[in-house]
């Protein structure tokens, strides 16, 4: 017979997996610090790529002027300016990413905790069902070897 309470809990879990799986359940695999560090690292990489593209765009805008004074360019100064800009971008993105992913972890945690609590309840139902079920009998009506109890 179908246990409606168990089905209700299973539906709750299935809905959670369907809607939140990609976002939140992956959080459960990480400790908070690891999750934040991993995502901050990814953000810094993408911010670096974005910065390189912006520098490239700037160079493309000025390439006529750059080409004319190619021999007189102060490469050291240019490299220093680009590096300082990159460092500033990294600091800004580090702070933003740290705040965003900390907040995201904190927000997702209650939902994930609730999901695992519901899973535990379902497990309990299974245990009760198993305990109350008639012992497994083989074709002759005897108890299976693994279910034999020696009184």
């Amino acid at each position, binding site marked *: 017979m179908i246990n409606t309470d168990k089905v209700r809990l299973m539906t709750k879990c299935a*809905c959670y997996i*369907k809607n939140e799986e990609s976002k939140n359940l992956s959080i459960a695999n990480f400790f908070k610090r690891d999750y934040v560090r991993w995502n901050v690292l990814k953000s810094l990489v993408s911010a670096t790529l*974005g910065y390189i593209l912006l520098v490239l765009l700037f160079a493309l805008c000025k390439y006529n002027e750059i080409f004319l004074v190619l021999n007189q360019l102060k490469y050291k100064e240019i490299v220093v300016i680009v590096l300082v800009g990159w460092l500033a971008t990294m600091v800004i993105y580090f702070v933003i990413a740290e705040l965003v992913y900390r907040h995201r972890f904190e927000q997702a945690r209650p939902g994930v905790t609730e999901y695992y609590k519901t899973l535990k309840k379902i497990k309990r139902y299974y245990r009760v069902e198993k305990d109350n079920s008639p012992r497994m009998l083989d074709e002759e009506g005897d108890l299976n070897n693994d279910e034999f109890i020696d009184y």
Partner: protein
Amino acid sequence: MTNLLIIRDFLKAFFQRYERFLVPVVRFLYAMMVLIVFRNLFGYSDTLYEMPVVLAISFVCAFVPTGVIYIMMAIIAVMDVMNLSTQVALVLVIFFLVIYLLYLRFVPGKSWMVLVSMMLAIKLPCLVPLLAAMFVGPVAIVPAISGIVLYYFSIHARQLEPLINASTDDVSESQIPYLMTTLVGDKEMLLFIAVTAIIIMITYLIYKSSLRHAWFMAIVIGTALMIFMLLAGSMMIEDDISVFTILLGSLLSGAIAIVVQFFKGVLDYGRIEIVQFEDDEYYYYVKAIPKIHIAEKDVNVQKFNERDANSDDYE
């Protein structure tokens, strides 16, 4: 008012019931509108905007997430601009990539905001900050500004077209510097960017405050400030934005924002969930329907004197 509330509840129930079909339809229409706007803003390729192609692309977009729609639309815009010039297309690629790398990676669900902001910039630029503040918050400043920049990029790219067609060597060498110099020096664009950012912040702060009728005050103050800032700004930069356009655009945007606010709750419904799972004994196919309460017309008119007072009976 009761009728409006009944309509709203009806719409809410309707959306809840047919969400599975409505979401793809809305995505289809959204993609189609973006493509039509692209045809007006860019439109350098004829084949990309033929009706069967537009319908096919929109059909595909109906079944993919909004982030994928953003990528598809970016590819289409770049392919289109390639017909004008490879250099201009390269700048557009960099724009789309920078928006993605520096912003959309953090807030992936807001990619639609870039394209909507771009679409509204054509006729109703004043609506962008109001809707952005109401629906998204300060996080919307970046995509709203990106949309405005993309719109002005398309205008300056079009101005470049006759120069490119003249095909002199000087022009082919200096397309990107010319485009970027005119874009960065466009004071009208800078004015709209500044106004959009400020209005989003102010409207959002009032909208989220605990004041009575905060949403109404936010829209009214936001609209009034926008009119003032645009008028003052256009006088300062000596731009030719007409006073009539600013007034009409802002007031219309305010009115649309009020209507949108009223129906905003329509989308705030519990979804019908269809899930499949199994245990050792059964396969389960469950359709979970949230309980809803539809307000009904609760008007009881009791007539105490049904006879006409002016009828002959009283004479």
